[in-house]
């Protein structure tokens, strides 16, 4: 069997002729629209791709994008970052986390700033690196600050399984895993709702299957396409959404059929089920409390729960974003990044005031970084 090369993952999915043909089809179909089609790309990865490849320039004005809440960095409320910082500053603690979570501002700064002030913060590529850190520091309490959607949850579960198998007693978990469907459902339930169709993230469905969006289709009756992240994937998904919308036959379709099926990865789901259960509420930055939208460790595994083990270090008082930020409106499709008064004028990737400016997957960051002009954004 031939091994898959990394190149195969994107080669052909950025082909100019294919993109041009898809764009032309979308142009033709869009002439049938009597009003703009407002598509929410739920995932920050899609926002990044749309801006990184400047796809709106290929599309008619009748196609509007609403940048959704699907960025684990953007939706992390300040009090959770403050908790991570408090854990990292405690004597004999090491806080371990992934990638650009380091940059997210809490109420008094980010984990990167805390690290510069002496807090023990390790950034890792993979959660499993936590094992090595814990083994090399047996006299320290190592806390994995677990973040992300359905995509990253199995890795946290795999880490916990390893911690148990290796009988490590110095590893704890601060769980911030969240779920896509409850958050999208909360946005679709709001009135007025500005969302006509959904581009759903494929990597979430690689784990959880396309089935997780069935209830959204049944409840809200809008077109949904589970899409890949390459330019061709996105244009093909838009075409599928447009066809569903124009024929008034909303459906749940999988564009990214090369990796997504209805059921998803059952092994990964079993691993998640073994260790996690939904929380009653999770507070999303910019969106507020959403019932059953976050995960926590099951009672059997509470000994590993940092929120229980170190409860005396953690404050749970909600802390809102800067009052001039309109991240919540941007995530709801009520505003575009450049309509925010502080966009590129006080809020930029070096000094983010609001959550959408922090990660390269955040709507404001993507506009700032890739739009042709700042701040008069023309995408």
């Amino acid at each position, binding site marked *: 069997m031939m091994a898959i*090369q*990394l*190149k195969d*993952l*994107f080669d052909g999915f*950025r082909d*100019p002729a294919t*993109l*041009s043909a898809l764009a032309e089809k979308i142009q033709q179909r869009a002439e049938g629209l009597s009003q703009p089609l407002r598509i929410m790309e739920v*995932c*920050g*990865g899609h926002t*990044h791709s749309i*801006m*990184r*490849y*400047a*796809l709106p*320039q*290929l599309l008619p004005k009748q196609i509007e994008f609403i940048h959704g809440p699907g960025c*684990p*960095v953007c939706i992390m409320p300040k009090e959770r970052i403050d908790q991570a910082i408090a854990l990292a500053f405690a004597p004999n603690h090491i806080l371990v986390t*992934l*990638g*650009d*979570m*380091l*940059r997210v501002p809490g109420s008094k700064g980010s984990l*990167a700033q805390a690290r510069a002030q002496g807090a023990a913060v390790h*950034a*890792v*590529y*993979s959660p499993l*690196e936590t094992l090595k850190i814990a083994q090399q520091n047996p006299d320290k309490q190592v806390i994995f600050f677990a*973040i*992300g*959607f359905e*995509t*990253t949850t199995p890795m946290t579960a795999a880490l916990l399984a390893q911690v148990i198998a290796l009988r490590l007693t110095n590893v704890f978990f601060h769980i911030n895993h969240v779920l896509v469907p409850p958050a999208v459902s909360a946005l679709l339930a709001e009135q007025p709702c500005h969302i006509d169709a959904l581009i759903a993230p494929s*990597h979430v469905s690689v784990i959880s299957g396309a089935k997780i969006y069935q209830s959204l289709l049944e409840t809200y009756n809008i077109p949904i396409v589970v899409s890949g992240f390459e*330019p061709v994937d996105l244009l093909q998904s838009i075409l599928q959404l447009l066809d569903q919308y124009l024929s008034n036959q909303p459906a749940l379709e999988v564009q990214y059929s090369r990796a997504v099926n209805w059921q998803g990865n059952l092994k990964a789901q079993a691993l998640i089920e073994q260790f996690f259960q939904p929380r009653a509420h999770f507070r999303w930055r910019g969106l507020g409390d959403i019932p059953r939208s976050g995960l926590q460790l099951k009672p059997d595994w509470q000994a590993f729960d940092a929120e229980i083990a170190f409860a005396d270090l953690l404050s749970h008082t909600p802390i809102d974003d800067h009052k001039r930020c309109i991240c919540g409106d941007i995530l709801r499709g009520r505003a575009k990044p450049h309509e925010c008064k502080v966009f590129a004028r006080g809020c930029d*990737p*070096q000094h983010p005031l609001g959550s959408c400016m922090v*990660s*390269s*997957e955040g709507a404001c960051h993507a506009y*700032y*970084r*890739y*739009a*042709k*002009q*700042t701040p008069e954004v023309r995408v």
Partner: protein
Amino acid sequence: MKSIQLSQGGGGLESQTLIQNLFYRHFNNPILAQAEDAALIECQGQTAFTTDSYTVNPLFFQGGDIGKLAVIGTLNDLAMRTARPGYLSAGFIIEEGLAYADLERIVASMAQAIAEADCQLVCGDTKVVPKGAVDKLFINTSGIGAVQTNHPPALNRIQPGDALIVSGDLGRHGAVIMAARGGLDLNSDLQTDCALLWPLVEALLNAGIELHALRDATRGGLATVLNEWAQASGLGLAIEESQLPICEPVQGLCELLGFEAYDLANEGRMVIALPADQAEAALRVLRQFDISQNAAHIGEVNQHQPGQVIIQTAWGTQRRLHWPNGELLPRIC
């Protein structure tokens, strides 16, 4: 295993032994051997002078180490002003406990790079600090070289209509370091691009190529150089994305972790702004060297988007190529 002790930085007999047995042995030349407080060197005409400090984790990586980096990096800074490498200094800040064999390997690698550049290390300094005060080894190097043209390349010489060239494929050094730090097995023999740029610059000068601006694209990568040029010149830079030379393993790592190759560090790549009618001739010269086989004409200087770098995609859309954003961290999903 023999390791560096605090006493070897104390200035006494142990320091002298370390200097004699390690540094003088590898960097041996008549000026250094005088062992005076300051080296006496010959300088004629316009002289370039530069300094840089090197810290890298890990100390050894595919195709290089901190020592090679410390020599090449400083000599490349000289080359970017068309200065032929002449003399180097080196200051070592060593963490107590560093394996002697590792230090010797690094010093030998520096000596080899210095010999290949046909220059001399003429003065230096060694400090040993307590464990934890530095991360294994920091090296500072300064370099002096004789400028070879009457009109050295400079930011204020960039003009509308200039062509922009990069001397080779992008992001190798950054990718190698990222992969080493993250314990990623790239399943390839990807090596750092760490290499001396002076021979390329000399060949361009000998071919009569007019160099308006030259910059080696180190930390911050190509994106930083282009943004610095756009901002300093007040002109617009237009880049064709399809022309950016990027090798497959680097592209693969970028796809995996959410990086852009033009944001990643290089240690043997330069960006050139030159008159458009000389671009082809410059490429012919560059492609005679192994390290610049993949030299490419990537774009032009214009007056359309003052102070900005605009990248044109292969499918006809345009976007801004922004400065890299602080510490490069992998995207989460």
